[in-house]
């Protein structure tokens, strides 16, 4: 298309060609998202011209690109402004005042926001002078410093609703990442260097501190040895499902003929979780080393880091780290003289939570809408990226691999508890005095110690009302609940014990036994000022927005649940609403293609069950509020252009019939 070729600067063209080269030659489609990012960076938005140009560039049809532009919220089809502000509206930020931030920012910038009730994405509003634009976005993965927003590509933490006008003018000064030194209950392994004053993310600093030694050690081991060490370590995935990493790895046949891919899932987006962000930003080489060891162990010559689109700086840091590692021959051709060629590429997401689901991520990496695949048959270890065997691991999980090589699987397994080994990073946000991240030995700290000792407990004069222990999809637990758990006794035996919420050890099995899950390690604390209908509504809005829309129960149910809680908040709750909410959630969980079904159903199921009174109080109306009819009959005829005139066809029967010849 000569029209646009003139618009494409040589810099942009080179950037796009580079992006295309990062994927196999017959898989150009994978470059669709990088190209869309580049286009938007250059032109501010992706209009129809961009859609057509990129489609042609990648030998695709325009619809293939249009599908992406409209699926991923970060891609805009209309221009925003020079200063685009994205305010996080998800739970921890909303609790910390992000709605107030939005209101004040709009007032300061002269923006009138129209809430499009029937729209899909949170709409972008532009100020009358065109200088500012603003939108709500879903979780920016910085819940510990809530409320947060992004101004252009920069994250602004701890935004003071009273001081938002500063956002519009000079925002640099607002950055305030002050993490206190590690708490005595912590065991820092992965986060050893996070927050250190003398630590920088460059390779020199990393090498000075023993960096890449474990990679050097690993390449001297056989592949099976490494996989066995990981198996022995008992490492469970830190992304949410807690699947044993070594077992996952052993699905890859040692004599696999097809190429094997390793994907690092850096799409951290479960509300309440903000650990991978710090690894990527502050200790990128730890991640790269973990990926390289894993690639070597799995004979994966290509690794992709799928990093969420809201981490633009993180993506740059990782790009730089990869280049630094290449300069030192830790990756590239003949890595460390082993004869093993390995490449790692960054692939940026664009604001879709579902890309955290591994098969959704793979589809997205293939340049498609992130529709999770059905399993069976599409288990990633068999039919993953490009239908090749693929391992998808979380950022933190891959970092642990480095430490397992360092310590040996057996030693590593001594950390934590049986079947819940190692350390893990727990993120605490919400109604606590010192929100933040804490690396603990799995199960060595109770929820009570975590909330009261480490995170400082609730604010003065408040009490903990409920805790969501593993990211917003985990079932909520009430502060006054009692749980029956099998716990290790002082004499070493296991016995069932009746415990309070705060006595639950922070590990996979205990939280599962308590009816929730450790999930991604995002602990959200709710104090006694919180309205549970409001809280659930906030969570429901997140999941209704993030449902990919592929399969029926989640697509229809997530929005339905949100509409019910919306109505309850507006005072229109009817008697049957709590029951409807529960049964709608029941009809989603376990019936969908991917675990998103559970993720969106569990909050509703648990909130309605555990805070019955609050939900019943909001559901007092005997009948629903009157609603206008959707279409009047005349409107329908109009809409469908129904012809009312008789048919024009006349085959001549009538004439012959009257002539008596039939």
């Amino acid at each position, binding site marked *: 298309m000569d029209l646009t070729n003139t618009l494409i600067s040589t810099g942009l063209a080179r950037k796009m060609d580079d992006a295309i080269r990062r994927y196999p030659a017959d898989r150009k489609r994978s470059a669709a998202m990088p190209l869309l990012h580049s286009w938007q960076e250059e032109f501010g938005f992706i209009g*129809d011209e961009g*859609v*057509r140009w990129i489609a042609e560039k990648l030998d695709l*049809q*325009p*619809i*293939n690109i249009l*599908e992406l532009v*409209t*699926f991923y919220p970060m891609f805009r089809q209309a221009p925003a402004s020079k200063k685009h502000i994205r305010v996080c509206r998800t739970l921890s930020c909303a609790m910390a005042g992000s709605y107030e931030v939005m209101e004040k920012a709009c007032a300061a910038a002269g923006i009138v926001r129209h809430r499009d*009730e*029937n729209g*899909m*994405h949170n709409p972008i509003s532009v100020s009358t002078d065109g200088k500012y634009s603003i939108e709500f976005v879903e979780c920016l993965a910085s819940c510990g410093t809530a409320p947060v927003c992004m101004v252009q590509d920069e994250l602004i933490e701890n935004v003071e609703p009273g001081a938002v006008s500063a956002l519009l003018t000079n925002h640099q000064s607002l950055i305030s990442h002050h993490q206190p030194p590690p708490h005595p209950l912590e065991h820092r392994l992965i986060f050893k260097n996070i927050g250190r004053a003398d630590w920088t993310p460059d390779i020199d600093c990393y090498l000075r501190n023993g960096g890449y030694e474990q990679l050097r050690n690993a390449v001297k081991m056989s592949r099976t040895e490494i996989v066995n060490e990981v198996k022995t370590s008992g490492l469970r995935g830190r992304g949410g499902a807690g699947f044993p990493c070594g077992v996952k790895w052993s699905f890859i046949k040692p004599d696999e003929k097809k190429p094997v891919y390793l994907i690092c899932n850096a799409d951290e987006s479960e509300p309440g979780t903000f650990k991978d962000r710090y690894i990527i930003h502050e200790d990128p080489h730890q991640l790269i080393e973990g990926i390289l060891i894993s690639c070597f162990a799995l004979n994966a010559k290509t690794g992709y880091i799928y990093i969420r689109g809201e981490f633009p700086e993180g993506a740059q840091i990782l790009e730089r780290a990869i280049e630094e590692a290449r300069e030192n021959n830790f990756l590239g051709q003949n890595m460390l003289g082993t004869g093993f060629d390995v490449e790692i590429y960054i692939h940026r997401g664009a604001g879709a939570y579902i890309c955290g689901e591994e098969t959704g991520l793979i589809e997205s990496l293939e340049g498609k*809408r992130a*529709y999770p695949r*059905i399993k*069976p048959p599409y288990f990633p270890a068999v039919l993953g990226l490009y239908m090749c065997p693929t391992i998808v691991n979380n950022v933190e999980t891959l970092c642990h691999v480095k430490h397992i090589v360092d310590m040996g699987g057996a030693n590593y397994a001594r950390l934590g508890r049986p079947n819940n080994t190692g350390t893990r990073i727990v993120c605490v946000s919400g109604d606590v005095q010192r929100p933040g991240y804490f690396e603990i030995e799995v199960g060595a700290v109770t929820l009570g110690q975590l909330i009261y000792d480490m995170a400082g407990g609730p604010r003065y004069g408040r009490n903990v009302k409920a805790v969501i222990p593993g990211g917003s999809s985990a079932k909520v637990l009430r502060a006054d609940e009692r749980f029956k758990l099998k716990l290790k006794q002082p004499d070493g035996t296991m016995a069932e014990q009746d415990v309070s919420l705060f006595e639950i050890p922070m590990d996979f099995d205990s939280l599962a036994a308590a009816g929730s899950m450790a999930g991604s390690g995002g602990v959200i604390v709710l104090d006694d000022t919180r309205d549970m209908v409001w809280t659930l509504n906030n969570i429901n809005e997140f999941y*209704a927005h*993030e*449902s*990919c*829309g*592929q*399969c*029926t*129960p989640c*697509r*229809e149910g*997530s*929005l*339905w649940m949100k509409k*019910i809680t919306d*109505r309850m908040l507006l005072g229109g709750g*009817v008697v049957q609403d709590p029951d*409807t909410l529960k049964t709608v959630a*029941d*009809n989603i969980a*376990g*019936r969908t*293609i991917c675990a998103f079904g559970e993720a969106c159903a569990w909050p509703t199921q648990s909130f309605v069950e555990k805070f019955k009174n609050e939900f019943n109080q909001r559901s007092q109306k005997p009948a*629903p509020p009157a609603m206008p009819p*959707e*279409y009047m009959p005349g409107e*329908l*005829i109009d*809409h*469908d252009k*129904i*012809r009312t005139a008789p*048919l024009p*066809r*006349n*085959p*001549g*029967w009538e*004439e*012959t019939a009257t002539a008596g*010849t*039939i």
Partner: protein
Amino acid sequence: MSEQVLAPPQLVNVQINGVWHQFPKGTRVIEACEQAGSYVPRYCYHKKLSSPGNCRMCLIEMGLPKMGPDRKPELGEDGKPVINWMPRPQISCAQDVSEGMGVRTDSPLAQECRKGVMEFLLINHPLDCPICDQAGECRLQEFSVEYGNAESRFLENKVKKPKNIDLGPRVTLDDERCILCSRCIRFCQEIVHDDVLGFIDRGSHSVLTAHPGKRLENNYSLNTVDICPVGALTSSDFRFQMRVWFLKETKSFCTSCATGCNTIIGTREDMIYRQTPRENNAVNSSWMCDYGRLNFGYLQSDKRLLQPEILSGDKRIAAEWNVAITQAAVQLKHFAGWEIAILASGRMTNEELWLTSQLAKVLGIDLIDIVPRTGPTDDILFSADRNPNTNGARVLGVTSVPGTRLRDIADGIVAGRVKALIALGENPIDIGLTIAQLKMLPALVVMNILTDDATQAATVLLPSFGFAEKRGSMINGKGRLQRLNRAVRGPGQARDDWEILRDFIQACSDRNGIYSIEDVFRQMSESIPQFAGLSLSKIGDLGVQVLNMEAIP
């Protein structure tokens, strides 16, 4: 066609709703259930397309044999494997049966799943069945009767989506009715290789669309309407024309090219409203092209010939049938066989071609051929041979290489050697003759269905039937004998072609003895080895392979 000798398929034992059945390995669970008499409702699954598993309507309970410590299935009291039921429901559309598998299609859990999915599909679906073309053949309607609730619990506003969108020249989309099953998208990608449809936006707001720069205009677009389980995709041609429950359905096949896609013709009161493809895996799978599908309008056009006519002096006048036929015979009797040519058609049925060859024999005519019609093939269904029955014409000896004798016919007429022409379903102008040359002919007997230049020049005009108005057989391009059935009555005084030809032969020879089209077929089967032992009724709905095309050079 030589049947390949296949090894007997490996069978596996599957328990469906408590009863053990055997199925060939590779059978989809959903198909196995259907074969066992337990139909599992589905929206996204289509056996000719890939399985995305997105509608979740076919959720069932599934189990695999419980393995003992020796890795062998544990056997129950009945000697059959004990089944370990999975706690979560499974979709039945994406998995094949396996040895010892158990399926429950009607358990409380399976019923609850269906009910749940039905409710979800309906909450945002408009209640516009009274004006929806799909009503009457809508899976959403049917399954909601079976599995839905009478009352809605949905108290919110429905999601509004675009309506009445022209996706292309022949397909209209109503996004509010769409249940996002993606059948149409997959059809375009997998069958037509024209990636033109897609979903835009996300979640409950997802809508089907085509990019404005590339519309749904491929020659197979109307198949998306057939496979759309709801009223989202409608045929712009059929839209709002007729309620489907009024349609009489006649099994037939398409005569627009040599493929002969099997069809159902939907008619009411002698009016054709639509043609839809009928599954025949030896011919057209489940599809047909738009061109063939919509190629019936001419049958009801006002150009139809409705009345036999003869030339009286220099004026053409309407005539009774017996007068017209006699007139034709009288005109031809003036000439020797070598002075007469027959322009036959590859669109004629075998029966008509057989009678044509008999007519030629009676009149001693040697100069006979059909008009070939060719064009580019699309390598899907549309054949390069646009005549539906070239093979029939070959088998019945009306032509050997179609078109090779047309030159002789035309030259003969121009040179005056040929003095009489019988044009059957073809326009002599198409072989290079001019209207003036035709008008010079002392005898021009034309049998056709639409008026054209040649019919104007005819000395005897015999109006006949179109493909949907008659019975008969044809041999498609792959050598399969197929049967046309009458869907509508012919218009006016037009008559069935075979009857006209029979009467013509009678008038020329005083021979008699054919009373029905079955008689014609019997005669044919007695002389033509390919038809030996066959009859019209034996052809059946799916046809019979009669030629081995690989053996024909």
